[in-house]
């Protein structure tokens, strides 16, 4: 079958999609967007987290056909038009929140959704929001640091432009 949907603001068309293929498979193997990772195929690890019409989903659990006509946002969409890193991406690099990095794309998408909804999250809020994303390398402390840093930088940037 053919699936038409919007990925990171751009209309996309995937052909010859087999009915059982996941949104994750179509993103990675048919659209050449390997940023979303596949680590469990059970919706347990969060490595494949994307936003579907703004809502966080594990793309391994979404049949590609379910994305028909909808908006999908992946980690690739967090990078600016000219390749500059978004605030959250830069914070992950600066805070040392990236080790092997396999969990990083999913964590970024989930943290981005959190900060959009709650720009000043408490540590409890961050932990709750990211509890669906497993990381095996970092012990999470530096991931918390990164989200705190991104929130602080976003707030500082907003204050700077306020009259």
């Amino acid at each position, binding site marked *: 079958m053919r699936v038409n949907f919007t990925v990171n603001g751009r209309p996309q068309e995937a052909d010859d999609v087999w009915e059982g293929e996941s949104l994750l498979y179509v993103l990675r193997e048919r659209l050449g967007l*390997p940023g979303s990772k596949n680590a469990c195929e059970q919706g347990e690890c969060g490595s494949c987290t994307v936003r579907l019409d703004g809502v966080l989903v594990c793309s391994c659990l979404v049949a590609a056909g379910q994305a028909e006509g909808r908006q999908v946002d992946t980690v690739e969409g967090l990078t600016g038009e000219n390749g500059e890193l978004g605030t959250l991406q830069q914070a992950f690099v600066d805070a040392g929140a990236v*080790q092997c990095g396999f969990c990083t794309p999913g964590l970024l998408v989930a943290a981005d959704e959190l900060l959009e909804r709650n720009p000043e999250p408490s540590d409890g809020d961050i932990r709750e929001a990211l509890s669906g994303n497993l990381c*095996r390398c970092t*012990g999470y402390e530096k991931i918390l640091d990164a989200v705190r840093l991104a929130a602080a930088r976003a707030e500082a940037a907003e204050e700077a432009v306020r009259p």
Partner: protein
Amino acid sequence: MTTSGITPTPTGLTQGAATKGGIGESTLRPDGVLKVTGEFAYASDLWHEDMLWGYTLRSTVAHATIVSIDTAEALATSGVYAVLTYDDLPTEVRHYGLEIQDTPVLAHGKVRHHGEPVALVAADHPETARRAAAKIRIVYEELPVITDEASATAPGAVLVHEHRDDHHFPHVTHPNILHRQPIVRGDAEAAARRADVIVTGSYVFGMQDQAFLGPESGLAVPAEDGGVDLYVATQWLHADLRQIAPVLGLPESKVRMTLSGVGGAFGGREDLSMQIHGCLLALRTGKPVKIVYNRFESFFGHVHRHPARLWYEHGATKDGKLTHMKCRIVLDGGAYASSSPAVVGNAASLSAGPYVIDDVDIEALALYTNNPPCGAMRGFGAVQACFAYEAQMDKLAARLGLDPVEFRQRNAMEQGTIMPTGQPVDSPAPVAELLRRVKSRPLPPERQWEVAGGASDVRALPGGLSNTTHGEGVVRGVGYAVGIKNVGFSEGFDDYSTARVRMEVVGGEPVVTVHTAMAEVGQGGITVQAQIARSELGVAQVTIQPADTRVGSAGSTSASRQTYMTGGAVKNTCEAVREQVLEIGRRKFGTYHPAWATAELLLEGGKVVTDGGEALAALADVLEGEAVDLELEFRHRPTQAFDLRTGQGNGHVQYSFAAHRAVVEVDTELGLVKVVELACAQDVGKALNPLSVIGQIQGGTTQGLGVAVMEEIVVDPRTAKVRNPSFTDYLIPTILDTPDIPVDVLELADSHAPYGLRGVGEAPTLSSTPAVLAAIRQATGLELNRTPVRPEHLTGS
């Protein structure tokens, strides 16, 4: 500037300046940007035009004779290009292994564990490959399963390997014992008579999994010369190559390996997984073949941490001094050897922990069983022992009425202490100090769920968002532990690493290229390599080449050895490059300044400078028209094998030490545990990159927490089948399960090591687990001799 005709003149000199991004700085990862944009190519992201997908059919039973395999229907499936079994292997070399070559490439005649590879399929879509594999008909005749020491050594027990002929076999009492290492020092019986108290304990350590997030993956591309190019996530390219080439019947020069992006390892990628399988399918079909394990397959595709049963006896005098220790450690090696012999050596030689005990009687062994094969995982044999000896320390302290930290400090090893193996500890061993540091840290406030925001926050309670308690029945406990881990490969292994360093002028600037075969698995080794090159050669621009087999072996990214070994190789090679650069400088500019001949010269800020800081020449001028390019090996000081009867020998290169204090809150009604804080103090010798060091310590601490309260591969004792090969059923800590992990880093230099550094990655995994257990014991008053602790152990249900 030319070097002929005109006498060269040094130009543009100012004082030399320290080069940014050198050692000791928290330099950011060079791969960080690619990893946050999603562009970093992990092994599972590789793609080749016209590539096929490989799939592995695995045994559904643990121990059986294979009566027949029928592949006809699978092979006839549309889209299938090849189906391979043992009979299709191209040479007589059909087994591989890190230490003992006992692992079949594909099962032959027999399967020895659940999930053993039996057949391979290559097809045009991963689902086609899976469906075709399901059409392969295998008839098994099941055999009795060996699952523990009793069944392995029972009279008439079935032999897991019926034709053992490896070198360890003569030193064990039964062919189902894979390896055995006793250590006898002093007279434990006589010393026991001096003890005022003696405590014994039996402990069980569950089977932990590395559970790296990026599953085993790789792409094999057949080459025109009949060879193959393999892009793969691994920990040691050259060890893979040594095992792969003979099976393929190719010289090593025709198997070209390149490291692809690795999504974590922790020991689980030290053994081969898809490497040979991918190459076989590629060579058979003439097409590129990609294999990506799913999570279910990943649990069968790599070895696990050895589950263990440990028995300990310790004695102490009234004034709190250890008299003796006896122990017996039985590790379950599973169906194939992997690195079990070395794990046994570690468990035995580190079984007394970081304590002074002159009289010991130690035995460690590993069994062959039909359980999943076990091998390397972070901590490598020292983890299981630490869990048990630390429980013993608490028991002794309680019997003597001493504070558990005070008791440990009275017996703490220090520089000069003799290990049970007779080896002196010849570098700082700040065991008492590490304990002091974690103990002196203020405790986190009690009942934090009440103070958080003024209202009840269930997220801070045991059970968390499950909302199972609002604080009633919740009790707090505090526990301590400390551990000792060896760094690098021990027991006489010829452990080395190779680095190639090139220095030249590009675009008018001096640049350095570093090429090693070190596997970057997330630990940050490439960052450190660049930092070392900048520090040694005074050049800002350093490029790290991709790791591949065109350069000599770097050894394994394991045993906390890569900063020491490949870092040491980069350092030494840079020093040799520096000497050649200075030689060129002397030749070109030596007549301009007497310091060229007389002073100690350094490279700093892109210049040649004297040790007094005076700049003599710009590196761009020195190297104009010339390049220095060297490849050198680095070895640590030699070690010895442990004597197979007495265990004596200078077996280890270096030790690292970490201590933890765990604070837990336990809901005693439901048996749920919340770890509130897990503070760590560790001696790292020299922190080459403090940010990475702390990240490694926090990550290692969390893996120890995992095995304390949740992580275990559950194997059915009747069938030896794995019950929980998924992230639904094998739990690793989430961010809600993981507490604050404050880290206190000591830097006491080891004079034998490059920059005085100590390997960092493993030590924190040792003491984290027993600290959490000690805290739960203190909170509940229960004995708890098993890890992981489950709710039923806390509620008595």
